[in-house]
C-alpha cells in the first residue's frame, strides 16, 4: 500500500510515492540520496537520524513517511550552503570523532542554538541546558566534551564569524554530512541484502531450500552462508542470505527460505557450559574457535568446554600459591582476596558492519566499514580464491570500530557472494539488533584474585584465576596481563576460556585489560585501605614504570585527589568519593607497512592504506608530514582508506600512530632531501620557503618502510623476564599477527570523583582526571578527544553497559540502544586529560599510540571511588542501582 506525499526537503519540493510502513529516514537516504542523515538505532534513542520537521527536531527513523505530507523537512545537507556557527564550533572544538552521530547532533544543536539566541541573546547556556536539549542523542566515541563546549560557545556568539578551521582534517565533511561511509554508497541497480540467521543456539542444518525465495518478484539472489560443517553454534549465526530490490522485499523472501534444523543440546553461558554432562561446543582434535583477543590464542588443553589453564606468564607459581595459602591460614589482613565479575560490553559502533560490493568482470570493488582495509582486502582475496590485485576495498570514512571490525566478517562475505550471484551491486548493512547481538562484545569474566601486600616492601605475591566467557570464542588473557604492572617475587597467573553457545566475543579497545584492572586495581586499593596508606603512595612504592611514577606525582598534587574524603566517613543521602586506578599497555606496531610521501601537481601528499575510524589518523599523518616542512597540516593531502595504496596498519592495538609516524617521518625527510637537491639545481637560497618550493616542484614520491627504533638503554623490553613464554609469544605475534612488540610500556593513571545517591541507587561521575603516558603526542587535540572518549566508555563500562541475555534460549534481549545503555551527554563528567610525553625517545617521532590505554582503568577508578564514598566495594560490573542499593544496605 502506498500513497503520494508532497514534501519540501531542504527547500526543494518533492512528490514521492511512499509505502505506509516506510520511515522518513528510508525516503531521505534511499530515495533522495540524502545520506547525511544516518540510521543507527532505529528506535528513536540515539538521534543520529534527527531532521527538522517544520523547524522542530524529530527522529526520522520513527517518523512515518506518510506524515511528511505538506510538511517541510531540513536535513544536515540543508543547513548550508555556508557553515552555521554551530558547525564551525563543532570543527573548532573537535566535537566529533568517527562522525556518524554528528549530523544528528548538529541538526538538533542548530535548532537549539537558533531558539536560544532568539530567547536569550548571547547569554551562555549552562552545561545542563545543553545536555537537556541534546538528551535525545548518543555518541559511541564519547565526543560529548567537545559537543558541550561547541554548543555553549556557539550560543554565546563566539562563532558568529570567523573561519572554519579545526584540528581534524576531515571535520568539514563530517559536519556537513558529505562524508561517505560504506552504507551510504549507492550504485546503479544496487540490491539490498539481508541475512537469515539460526533461531537455535546449537543445531545441525539438514537442508536449506532457497527456491521459494528465488521465485519472489524483485529477488536478485539467494545464497547459503554455512560453512562446510553445517553446524550453527549460537542464535543468530548466518545460514543464508537474500538480495532484493529493497529491504522489505528481501525480508519477505527470507521468510520463504525453508531450513530444516536438527536441534542439538546447547550450553548457554559459562555456568551451564561447566556443568556435568554439558553439551560440548567443540569436539575432536581440530578445534578452531574464533579469537576474542588481538593475536592468536596461546596453545592450551581442553577439558570439555573449558580451555586452559594458560599459565605461561606465571612466575614461581607454586611459591605464590604457598604464600597465599599460608596467609589465608593465619588470617593475614594483608591478604586481599575476592571474586570480581564483569559484564559483556558491546562495541555497538554507530556505523554498523556494512558492505557494498560490486563486481566488474573479474574485478571486485568493495566499500566496507573496516578497521583494516589492507588485511581485509587480502582476506577477501583468500576467501574467494582471487588474485590480490583484483580486490579493491575502500573505507573512506568509518563510523567507529573499537576492535570489532578488524577482520573479514559475515556481512562482507554475504554482500560479495550475493553480488556475484545476482550480477548486480549489493549492500548488506546490519541493523542495530544484529549489531548488538552478534557483531562483537568485550567478553565477560569471573576473576578470582588474591594479593599479598606488605607494610614496607613491594607486592609479595599475586594469584589470579580468570575465567573468560566469550561465547564460542577463546582468547582470554586477563591473568597474564596481571604480570606486567607490579613486580612480585611470586605470581600464579592462570587464564581459562569457558566456551558456550553464545555469539563470539571480539577484541574491544585494550582486550582483557579493563577486566584485569577491575580486579587488580581494586585489590590494590583495598590493600592500601587496609594498610591505612594513601593508594597512590602504595602504587608509588610498588610500581616501577617511570611514566606512571610521574603521573602519580601529578595526581598527588591535583586538587581532586587532595580533597578526597576519608573512606566511608559519610552518612547523608549523597556521598562523594574519589578513586584512582592505573593501567599498563604494550607498545605495538604493525610490520610490513609503508607510507608514500610526495608532491603531485605542486601539492604535498601522504598516502598509506590505513583508515580513519574516528581516531584522527588523517590529522596525525598530515601534521607529521607538515612538521617536516614547517607547513600547516591543511597543506597536506592525505590519501588513506584504500587497499590499492601502499600497505598500512590496522586501526587497532593502538598501533596506527606508532607504526606510521616513524615511516611518515622517514618518507617525508627523503622528499625534503630531494626537494633541496632540486632547489640547489634551480637556484641557491638560504631561506627555504617550503610552500613555494613544493608548489613549483615537479611530481616526485618517496616510499619508506618502518625504520628500527633506536637502542633504548634503561627502557624495559615488555616480555623480558618472562622467559621462554615471553619469547614464544613475541615470535608468534610477530609471525602470525605481523605485529612487533616495542620497548617500553605505556601507562595511565585515572582519577574519578563520584556522587552516590544512596536513596535512588544512582552513581554520577562528576569529575575525572586522566594522566596518560604514551610519549610525545602526535596530534594533541585529537588525542585529547580520544582520551575523553576512553573515559566516557569507561563510565559506561562501570555503570550502565551490560548485554542482557535469556539464558535458556541463548537470545540477546538488550538488542537495541534503548536496552543496551551507553553513556549519554548528561553522564559526561568534567574531564581533564594530562599527557606525560617522555619515555619513548627511542621511537622516531618519540611517541606511540594511546587509544586503548585511555580507557582501561576508568571503571576500576570508579569502583574505588564508590568504595571511598560508601565504604562498600563493588565486585560486579556494571554498578547498577539494584546492586548499589543491595551493597550499601548489607
Amino acid at each position: 500500500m502506498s500513497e503520494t506525499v508532497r514534501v519540501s526537503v531542504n527547500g526543494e519540493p518533492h512528490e514521492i510515492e511512499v509505502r505506509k510502513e516506510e520511515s522518513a529516514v528510508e525516503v531521505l537516504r534511499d530515495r533522495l540520496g540524502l545520506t547525511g542523515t544516518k540510521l543507527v538505532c532505529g528506535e528513536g534513542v540515539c538521534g543520529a537520524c534527527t531532521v527538522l520537521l517544520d523547524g522542530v527536531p524529530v527522529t526520522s527513523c520513527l517518523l512515518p513517511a506518510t506524515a511528511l505530507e505538506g510538511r517541510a523537512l531540513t536535513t544536515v545537507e540543508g543547513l548550508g550552503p555556508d557553515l552555521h556557527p554551530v558547525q564551525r564550533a563543532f570543527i573548532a572544538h573537535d566535537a566529533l570523532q568517527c562522525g556518524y552521530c554528528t549530523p544528528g547532533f548538529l541538526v538538533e544543536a542548530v535548532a537549539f542554538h537558533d531558539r536560544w539566541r532568539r530567547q536569550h541573546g548571547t547569554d551562555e547556556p549552562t552545561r545542563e541546558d545543553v545536555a537537556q536539549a541534546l538528551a535525545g542523542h548518543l555518541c559511541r566515541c564519547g565526543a560529548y566534551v567537545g559537543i558541550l563546549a561547541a554548543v555553549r560557545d556557539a550560543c554565546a556568539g563566539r562563532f558568529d564569524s570567523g573561519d572554519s578551521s579545526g584540528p581534524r582534517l576531515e571535520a568539514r565533511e563530517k559536519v556537513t554530512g558529505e562524508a561517505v561511509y560504506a552504507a551510504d554508497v549507492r550504485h546503479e541497480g544496487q540490491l539490498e541484502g539481508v541475512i537469515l540467521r539460526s533461531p537455535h543456539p546449537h543445531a545441525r542444518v539438514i537442508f536449506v531450500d532457497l527456491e521459494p525465495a528465488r521465485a519472489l518478484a524483485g529477488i536478485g539472489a539467494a545464497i547459503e552462508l554455512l560453512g562446510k560443517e553445517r553446524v550453527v553454534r549460537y542464535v543468530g549465526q548466518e545460514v543464508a542470505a537474500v538480495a532484493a530490490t529493497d529491504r522489505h522485499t528481501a525480508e519477505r523472501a527470507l521468510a520463504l527460505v525453508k531450513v530444516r534444523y536438527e536441534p542439538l543440546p546447547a550450553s548457554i553461558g559459562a555456568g551451564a557450559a561447566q556443568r556435568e554432562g554439558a553439551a560440548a561446543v567443540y569436539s575432536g582434535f581440530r578445534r578452531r574457535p574464533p579469537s576474542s583477543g588481538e593475536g592468536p590464542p596461546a596453545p592450551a588443553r581442553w577439558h570439555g568446554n573449558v580451555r586452559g589453564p594458560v599459565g605461561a606468564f606465571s612466575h614461581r607459581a607454586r611459591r605464590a600459591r604457598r604464600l597465599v595459602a599460608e596467609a589465608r591460614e593465619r588470617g593475614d589482613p594483608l591478604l586481599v582476596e575476592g571474586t570480581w565479575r564483569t559484564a559483556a560490553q558491546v562495541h555497538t559502533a554507530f556505523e554498523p558492519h556494512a558492505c557494498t560490493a560490486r563486481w566488474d568482470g573479474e574485478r571486485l570493488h568493495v566499500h566496507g566499514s573496516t578497521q583494516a582495509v589492507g588485511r581485509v582486502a587480502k582476506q577477501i582475496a583468500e576467501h574467494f580464491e582471487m588474485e590480490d590485485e583484483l580486490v579493491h576495498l575502500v573505507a573512506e570514512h568509518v563510523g567507529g570500530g573499537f576492535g570489532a571490525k578488524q577482520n573479514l566478517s559475515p556481512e562482507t562475505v554475504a554482500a560479495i557472494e550475493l553480488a556475484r550471484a545476482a550480477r548486480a551491486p549489493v549492500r548488506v548493512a546490519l541493523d542495530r539488533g544484529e549489531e548488538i547481538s552478534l557483531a562483537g562484545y568485550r567478553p565477560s569474566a569471573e576473576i578470582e584474585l588474591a594479593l599479598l601486600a606488605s607494610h614496607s616492601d613491594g607486592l609479595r605475591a599475586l594469584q589470579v584465576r580468570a575465567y573468560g566467557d566469550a561465547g564460542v570464542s577463546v582468547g582470554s588473557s586477563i591473568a597474564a596481563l596481571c604480570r606486567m604492572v607490579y613486580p612480585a617475587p611470586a605470581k600464579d597467573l592462570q587464564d581459562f576460556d569457558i566456551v558456550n553457545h553464545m555469539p563470539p566475543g571480539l577484541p574491544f579497545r585494550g582486550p582483557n585489560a579493563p577486566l584485569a584492572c577491575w580486579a587488580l586495581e581494586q585489590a590494590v586499593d583495598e590493600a592500601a585501605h587496609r594498610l591505612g596508606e594513601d593508594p597512590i603512595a602504595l602504587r608509588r612504592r610498588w610500581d616501577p614504570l617511570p611514566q606512571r611514577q610521574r603521573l602519580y606525582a601529578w595526581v598527588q598534587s591535583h586538587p581532586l585527589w587532595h580533597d578526597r574524603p576519608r573512606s566511608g566517613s559519610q552518612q547523608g543521602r549523597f556521598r562523594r568519593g574519589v578513586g584512582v586506578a592505573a593501567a599498563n599497555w604494550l607498545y605495538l606496531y604493525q610490520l610490513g607497512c609503508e607510507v608514500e610521501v610526495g608532491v603531485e601537481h605542486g601539492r604535498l601528499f601522504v598516502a598509506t592504506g590505513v583508515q580513519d575510524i574516528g581516531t584522527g589518523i588523517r590529522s596525525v599523518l598530515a601534521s607529521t608530514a607538515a612538521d617536516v616542512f614547517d607547513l600547516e597540516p591543511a597543506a597536506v593531502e592525505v590519501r588513506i582508506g584504500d587497499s590499492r595504496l601502499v600497505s598500512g596498519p590496522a586501526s587497532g592495538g593502538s598501533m596506527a600512530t606508532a607504526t606510521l609516524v616513524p615511516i611518515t617521518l622517514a618518507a617525508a625527510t627523503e622528499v625534503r632531501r630531494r626537494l633541496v637537491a632540486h632547489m640547489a639545481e634551480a637556484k641557491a637560497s638560504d631561506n627555504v620557503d617550503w610552500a613555494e618550493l613544493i608548489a613549483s616542484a615537479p611530481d616526485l614520491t618517496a616510499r619508506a618502510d618502518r625504520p628500527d627504533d633506536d637502542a633504548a638503554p634503561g627502557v624495559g623490553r615488555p616480555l623480558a623476564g618472562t622467559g621462554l613464554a615471553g619469547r614464544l609469544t613475541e615470535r608468534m605475534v610477530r609471525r602470525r599477527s605481523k605485529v612487533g612488540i616495542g620497548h617500553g610500556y605505556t601507562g595511565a593513571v585515572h582519577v574519578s570523583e563520584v556522587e552516590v545517591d544512596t536513596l535512588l541507587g544512582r552513581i554520577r561521575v562528576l569529575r575525572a582526571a586522566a594522566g596518560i603516558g604514551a610519549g610525545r603526542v602526535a596530534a594533541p587535540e585529537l588525542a585529547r578527544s580520544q582520551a575523553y572518549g576512553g573515559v566516557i566508555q569507561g563510565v559506561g563500562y562501570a555503570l550502565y553497559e551490560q548485554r542482557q541475555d535469556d539464558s535458556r534460549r541463548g537470545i540477546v534481549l538488550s538488542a537495541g540502544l534503548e536496552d543496551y545503555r551507553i553513556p549519554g551527554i548528561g553522564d559526561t563528567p568534567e574531564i581533564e586529560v594530562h599527557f606525560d610525553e617522555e619515555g619513548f625517545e627511542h621511537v622516531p617521532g618519540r611517541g606511540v599510540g594511546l587509544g586503548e590505554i585511555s580507557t582501561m582503568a576508568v571503571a576500576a577508578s570508579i569502583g574505588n571511588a564508590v568504595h571511598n564514598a560508601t565504604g562498600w566495594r563493588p565486585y560486579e560490573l556494571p554498578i547498577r542501582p539494584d546492586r548499589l542499593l543491595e551493597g550499601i544496605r548489607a
Partner: protein
Amino acid sequence: MTPAPSTIEEARQASGEYRAGGTDFQQRLRSGVSSGPPIDLGRLPDLDRVEWNERGAARIGAMVPIATLASDTRLATAYPGLAQAAGALATPQIRAAGTLGGNLLQRNRCWYYRHPALSCLKKGGEDCPARSGNHLLGVCFDLGPCVAPHPSTLGMALLAYGAEVGVAAGADLPVAGLYGDGTDGRHDHQLGEHEILTAVQMPPALEHERAAYSRATSRALAEWPLVEAVVRLIMSGETIEFAAVAVGGVAPVPLRLEQVEQALTGRPASGEVLARAASLSTSGASSLPMTRYKLELLSGTLCETLERALRWRGAGRDSR
C-alpha cells in the same frame, strides 16, 4: 492506494493498527511486532486541540503533542504534575513527535515482547517468558500473568488527576478503567480493536496545587524509569490538605497509592509523616526474584517526589 481516514467513522471502519505520532508503532514495525497495516490518524479533525470549559477543566485532544503538555502555559499552570511528567519523559524529539493518545496506548517495553522471535501473552502466546526468564526490569507488584511494567508515564500522571478518556462513539472512561487492574496479561489497555481514544478530560484545576514528578534511572537523562512517581499536594499552612499519588514502573498498570494519600492527608508535612507515607508505598507489593530492588527504589522515589512537590513553587520555576 488507501488514503488516510479523514473522519472518525472512516478510521473506525479501517482495518489495521492505529498510528498517531508513530514513535512506538514504527519501532515495533521495524522489529516485526505490529499487528497490521498502519491507519494514520493525522488527518482526523480536531484531535489536536485543547478546549477549556467554564469550570476551568481542559479537554485535551488525543493528537496533542507531548511537548505541548509541558510547554503550554495554561496547561502547565492548571496541571503541574502532568506537565512535569510530560517534560521529563523520553527525549525532546520523541516529545515533539509523540502524542498524548499515543503515549497512553503505547505497547509495553518488555524485551521479550519486543523480540520478533519470541512469543508472549501479549502476542497471543501461552505464557510470560520473562517471568521464568530475565525480568530485571519487571514489576514488583505482581498483579497478573504478565510481568512487564506499564510504560505510560502520562497514564500514571493522569491517574493522579483522576482524568477520564474520551472514546469515539462511547462514554468517557476513567483512566483507571482504561488500564484495568493488571490481571489481564494480554493487553496494555482495554480499548477494543476499533475503538479510538479521542481526548482526555481533565478535572477542573485546583488552586494552589503543587506537584512533582520524578523517576529513578541509572543514567542522568533519557532512560525508561525503573520507578516513577507523581505527587500532587495542596497545603493549608503546614498541613497537607489534599494528596494524590501515583506510581509507575512497578506494576502491569499505573498505580494510584491510596494508602499513601491517606497517610498524608490532614497531617503536617513533617519528615516523619513523609517517611511513613513513603514506606506505605510498598504495601501490597509482591516482587519477583530479580525485582526486589524496586521496592526500595519505590519508597525512595516517593520520598524524593514528595520533597520536590513540597519545594515546588509554580510552573516555570525550578523546583530542584
